[in-house]
């Protein structure tokens, strides 16, 4: 059975995570060889996932950690030895 583009899109996230069975993976790979649209959709989705994993996208507010540990220190003193 040859799979179509829509079918590939349904599994793209699982494919990226290595979470599809061998049979389905082979079908998707075969489709990707000849379908430039699905290849581009896969590459762009994967690119988005990689970019989000970079710590520079979401940074903690300046001084967050110092304030947090300062508060904690107060609680520790208040809660006795």
């Amino acid at each position, binding site marked *: 059975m040859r799979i179509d583009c829509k079918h590939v899109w349904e599994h793209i*996230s699982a494919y990226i995570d290595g*979470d599809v069975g061998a049979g389905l993976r082979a079908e998707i790979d075969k489709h990707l060889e000849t379908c430039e649209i699905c290849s581009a959709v896969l590459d762009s*989705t994967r690119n988005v*996932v990689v970019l989000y994993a970079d710590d520079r996208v979401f940074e903690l507010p300046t001084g*967050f950690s110092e304030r947090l540990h300062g508060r904690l220190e107060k609680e520790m003193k208040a809660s006795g030895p």
Partner: protein
Amino acid sequence: MKNAHNPEVEAEYIRRILAGEKQLFHDLIRPCERPIFFLLMSILRNEADAEDAAQETVVKIYLNLHLFRGESQFRTWALSIARNEGLGRLRKAETRREDSLDAITEDQGGDFTPAILTSWREVPNQALEQKELAAVLRQAIDGLPEIYRNVVLLRDIEEMDVRETAAALGIAEGAVKVRLHRARALLQRSLAPRLKGFAPKRGKLFGWGR
């Protein structure tokens, strides 16, 4: 820090903290700070509220440390306390946004068709040195319905696995996968056209990043 936590080291820390070496708690909680804050940001959508809730969460974790049974990872347990703190605040303020109602129906409709492209030039991580790129990525996450935002945040930003994400959010692993798939599809659709401008120009392959 996003590395996997060693449960034995954690258990030893917890044992010593409960036996009186309180100061060790600072080190125990440090790797959890980022996910706690960003999960609360996702729920509360306001930096000041998220920071306040994060402090409250960490204090609660400290005061309730003796209740941790080691059945899950420490970070998972910490995140479920953060989630309860966030949701509790939303309820109290009665400011639950409409999209929170999404949580009731998993199988809502929606168009998860990707942006159609015929080729893709990769945007390298070095491009994040440009502040606009990070801002575009943050905006796209902010535009997601909450149930998708929480999942993508823990899976793709904090790089937690499916099991831990499911446990931290109190949902099934299947739901994590479905929501993550949808979130990525929505992100690809909104971002692909905008990210093109951040790809290195053709012919400058060797000059990139200099």
